[in-house]
């Protein structure tokens, strides 16, 4: 809630927020349902193919989301991609300064950052990269199983798995840095209440500016 000495700026448009959360739900669904086929022992949850059907439904949303967003927001999408792929001196400086900053709060070495900081850019890169890998290998495994050789299929699985590992690991970092790290002006305190979650959904990415 804004206090007297604070003001809020709109950092992300409403449709972007919507898209973010739809994508997140799809991604997490994919992640969880995919995990059942990845970790030994968990697979029993996937018996009778139920979770695999959910995976497919979520996959469609996961693929359609960005496509729809891209065609309805071409400039923002292209900007997003360009932003992700633009790296400069400041980014490498950020990486050097990051450990001190995140552990000790030392901002001194931090270079200026743009719309998103380097860490967020890295995450965006992972998102785009894994998206491409997931969709490419996923398409092969879903629609071309039985037509490609078993070697091709299984290597697609391997790549899909690697993308999953990278994506999940980075997702944890993203959640941690976005919502858990003590230094971040968090949207909610460590002990989140429902009020905070509503706020989260409505417009969480309105960065508080001190």
């Amino acid at each position, binding site marked *: 809630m804004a206090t007297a000495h604070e003001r809020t700026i709109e950092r992300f448009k409403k449709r972007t927020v919507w898209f973010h959360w739809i994508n997140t739900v799809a991604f997490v669904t994919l992640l969880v349902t995919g995990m059942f*086929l990845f970790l030994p022992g968990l697979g029993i949850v*996937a018996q009778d*193919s139920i979770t695999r*059907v959910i995976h497919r439904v979520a996959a469609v949303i996961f693929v359609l989301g960005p496509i729809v967003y891209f065609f309805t927001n071409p400039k923002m999408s292209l900007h997003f991609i360009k932003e992700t792929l633009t790296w400069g001196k400041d980014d490498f400086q950020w990486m050097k300064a990051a450990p001190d900053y995140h552990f000790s709060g030392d901002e001194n070495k931090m270079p200026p950052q743009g719309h998103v900081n380097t860490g967020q850019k890295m995450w965006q890169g992972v998102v785009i990269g894994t998206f491409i890998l997931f969709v490419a290998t996923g398409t092969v495994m879903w629609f071309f199983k039985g037509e490609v050789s078993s070697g091709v299929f299984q290597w697609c699985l391997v790549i899909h*798995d690697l993308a999953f590992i990278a994506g999940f690991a980075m997702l944890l970092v993203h959640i941690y840095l976005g919502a858990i*790290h003590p*230094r971040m002006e968090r949207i909610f305190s460590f002990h989140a209440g429902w009020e905070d979650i509503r706020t989260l959904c409505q417009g969480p990415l309105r960065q508080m500016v001190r």
Partner: protein
Amino acid sequence: MAKAILFDATKCTACRGCQVACKQWNELKAEETTNRGTCENPPDLSPDTWLKIKFAEVSKNGNGAIDWLFTRRSCMHCTEAACVTVCPSGALSHHKLGYVDYNKDKCTGCGYCVEACPFKVPKTDGGNLTGIRKASKCLFCRDRVTNGLQPACVTTCPTAALQFDERNKLVTLGRDRVEKIRSTYPKANLYGEKELDGLHVMYVLPYSPEVHGLPVDPKVQTATEARDLLKWVGVGAVAAVVAVAGLNFLVARARMIQASKERGES
């Protein structure tokens, strides 16, 4: 004591009693087939066909004479079973009698076993669109063998081309038979003795395996082994992230509290 089946191709007359006995015992339905210009049918294994005999006309020792080979095709019940390795739900597992067991209820329909098997044995019964399907394969007649009976195929074979016994006894029997037929078939071999750490369905073959349509020195694919490894990579990566994040949280918070104390904030 590990059990196995020994198939002696030199004794098989392709009567296909085994094919039908398997269907009868496992209550599998007949497929609709056509004559594709051969006695061999159905064309391949399927959810309803767990065992078939392959026919191949070959030249006998290259001197104008011909031979007609009859080769069993069914689950090989490998010791180093790729399907067991890839199965996410444990539907495929090793039984203490040595065969590869399969619990259809647990099957997720992922079809990884179909891709991983070096012999292309497991078959699924659903399409790719919904992905809803179950795999099928020979069950080694587990309800029979765990009750003192022999598998249906072995029981019905009139020429004892199929035998069922303790694996090491069949290895000896197979080796002896290979020696006995070597004068007629110089390339005779006991297939499955060592392949994939030992198959629980072994073959006395008069010709080298590829002539019978069997892969020479089959191996679990690298991709399969890679996936097996990735589980640990994944767990490790996530654990590392959680550990670092956890550490970071504790350290960062401690320092924040320290800093605010220093600033006089309570």
